[in-house]
């Protein structure tokens, strides 16, 4: 009985996907395909039906998870058999391909939706039932409203020092993003367009340092910061800089640099050489070329690295805790949130809300940097 229901559900899901696909292709302004569309739609029915039947048969012998996997394999095999290469090609070239984007996005979103739902439900409900149960509840039943709460958010935002922690996080994250990008962009330019001895060797060494785990660096660096100890010897380090913003900036710069140099070298190095050469012929110095030409042209690469560096620094707890000291006046957002969840995890129910609050700013940064990902910055440059 259940199996029949599942089979019915698969059909309905198939029809729904097809319907959404039709609407989506129209909405997205994609020109409708020729008769191909209908062929593909019809051809798609066969694998789905046979796959559904296979699933029901498999269910007699196998647990459901395995049966589902096997049925999906059967569906794929039949799809291949029905149309062979042509079928797949038609699928790929079809506007329906946009639908796969929708499917991936939905898949990607499922975990986050679970988190979102959990962040608004009371502790008791979260522990008692799965978050997806909201989808088969009617909002008109009695007691439906009782499971929802804003308390988690108000508790997190009202935490001691949260505003202060937010300011501290900004003071850590913005320079920790700008400094490595600047340093890396200059280095990447030199590695791609300047001639000097040991260029390759140095570049490989820089990128090779990507693999050094941050955790292995913390202890030697902490010793260097606090007592000036270097390879077990004491050095006349001017003053313990541990506990200052600069200590954290430099650490984040160091840890972020290899990737920054690597990504930016890849981008800057692939700019057309005719551009740089013509600028040199016009008498521009390397510094002028870098500032006037390379930086504006590399904006997409700079912006994408900026997003990630900002994100890592913003979500970092370890480096801030070790090098900033962890006292309340200098605590960052991640630290404030970690303290909030309690030493024994007794406040774990606050984590979903906390996760959403700390996500807000990086996502906003991502959105605001989106407009720099534009096409055609180097268009026509080669001709000049």
């Amino acid at each position, binding site marked *: 009985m259940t199996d029949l229901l*599942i089979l019915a559900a698969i059909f309905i899901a198939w029809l729904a996907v097809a319907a959404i696909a039709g609407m989506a292709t129209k909405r997205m302004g994609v020109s409708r395909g020729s008769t191909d569309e209908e062929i593909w739609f019809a051809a798609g029915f066969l694998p789905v039906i046979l796959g559904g039947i296979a699933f029901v048969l498999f269910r007699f012998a196998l647990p*459901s*998870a395995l049966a589902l996997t096997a049925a999906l394999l059967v569906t794929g095999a039949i799809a291949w058999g029905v149309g062979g290469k042509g079928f797949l*090609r038609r699928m790929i*070239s079809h506007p329906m*391909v*946009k639908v796969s984007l929708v499917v*991936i996005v939905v898949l*990607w*979103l*499922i*975990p*986050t939706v679970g988190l979102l739902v959990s962040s608004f439900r009371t502790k008791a409900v979260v522990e008692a039932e*799965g*978050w997806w149960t909201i989808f088969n509840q009617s909002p008109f039943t009695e007691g439906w409203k009782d499971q929802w709460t804003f308390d988690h958010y108000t508790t997190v935002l009202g935490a001691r020092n949260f505003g*202060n922690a937010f300011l*501290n996080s*900004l003071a850590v994250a*913005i*320079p920790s993003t700008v*400094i490595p990008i*600047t*340093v890396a962009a*200059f*280095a990447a330019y030199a590695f791609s367009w*300047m001639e000097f001895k040991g260029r*390759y060797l140095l570049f490989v*060494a*820089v*990128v*090779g*340092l*990507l*693999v050094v*785990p941050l*955790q*292995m660096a913390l202890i030697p660096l902490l010793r260097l910061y606090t007592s000036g100890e270097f*390879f077990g010897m004491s050095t006349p380090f001017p003053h313990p*800089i541990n506990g200052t*913003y600069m200590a954290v900036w*430099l650490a984040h710069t*160091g*840890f972020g*640099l290899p990737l920054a140099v690597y990504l930016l070298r890849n*981008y800057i*190095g*692939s700019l*057309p050489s005719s551009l740089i050469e013509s600028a040199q012929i*016009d008498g521009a110095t390397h510094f002028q070329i870098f500032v006037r030409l390379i930086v504006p042209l590399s904006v997409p690469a700079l912006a994408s690295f900026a997003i*990630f560096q900002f994100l890592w620094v913003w979500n970092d707890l370890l480096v801030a805790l070790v090098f900033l000291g962890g006292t309340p006046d200098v605590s960052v957002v991640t630290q404030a*949130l970690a303290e909030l*969840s309690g030493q024994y995890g007794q406040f774990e129910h606050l984590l979903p809300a906390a996760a959403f609050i*700390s*996500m807000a700013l990086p*996502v906003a940064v991502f959105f605001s940097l*989106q407009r720099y990902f534009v*096409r*055609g910055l*180097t*268009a026509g440059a080669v001709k000049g």
Partner: protein
Amino acid sequence: MTERDKLIEVVEEDPPLPEDDRSPLMRLGLTVLRFLSAVAVPIVAFIILWLSFEWLRQADVNRGVIVLVALGVGVGGIFALYWAMDYAVNRMPEEWRESVRPWVFVGPALVILSIFLLYPALNTIWLSFLDGNSDKFVGLENYGFVFTDDGMLRAIRNTIIWILVVPSASVGLGLGIAVLADKLRRGEAFAKSLIFLPMAVSFVGASVVFGLIYKYKVFGAQTGLLNGIVQGFGDEPIAWLSQEPWNNLLLMVIMIWMQTGFAMVILSAAIKSVPDDILEAARIDGATEIQVFWRVVLPSILSTVVVVMTTMIITVLKVFDIVFVMTNGESGTEVIAEQMIRWFFRNDHNGRGAAIAVVLFLAIVPVMWVNVKRFRAEEAIR
């Protein structure tokens, strides 16, 4: 003769750089100068920043003001630094300028990297030859442990599978999404943001998120999505994270979920930089969209694909938080980086932890070799 041709002529008439005429003394001076220019930049920066922080530390002012000043010093300082160094280089004797300048550009990066990564790395290599408390020299004993211990062997096996699965899945999906999103007329930013979202979730957040999916409860209603589905089919719930060897795959899913956004953003930027005129030319010649992708777009972003792949492999080599939080390395889910942290920090055996770290360093040598070959080939044709 146009203005520009005149300029070219002037440039061509200039005598070549007096590379060979330099006296030994001058060459020595040049080397010293190069070295100084590379080192001086960070030192000057350091002193300026240090002084301003000394002031900040003593200043009894509002936190907001301190933060603003810190932002100004940090962001403004780094720009001022390079400008000042370039100014100084321009005041040097003419024949020195161009050989000193590259070191002004790369110097700061090299100095910072030497202190923050090279020094700890050398330190780690040294520790790997010492015993657990870093007191006694034990030779290669720790390396013997790395390649004989059962947990380590499982970790090496698992890490190899991680390297095979996660980077290819993330890059494949990221590339697919970037290409598809690029074709949308509207909603590109929106679709990309949703894929990017998991990157913004911290590791603690990710563990909570996937707890909501993989969780298994012995008593009471299941709160994990997978078990909810399984129960919906009428089967017994499964303790997903202790199902060897499939639990490794479940952990990899978390990593793919988090890292695809990275691949997508970088590859998307690369796709956007493929010149429009080339694409148009291909389309006018009658290429289908698939042909345009395989024959034009993919070859021109291939170096970026290699870069993203390399980055992913290294990220995967260093993954440990997912394993720690989800399974604590139990049920055969060990990975190399997790073992490293375990031995270094939890079991307090510095030697073994450091030896595992050195194995990690060595693992990327082949990857770097591929990269170097690529870069050389690329520079030859650009």
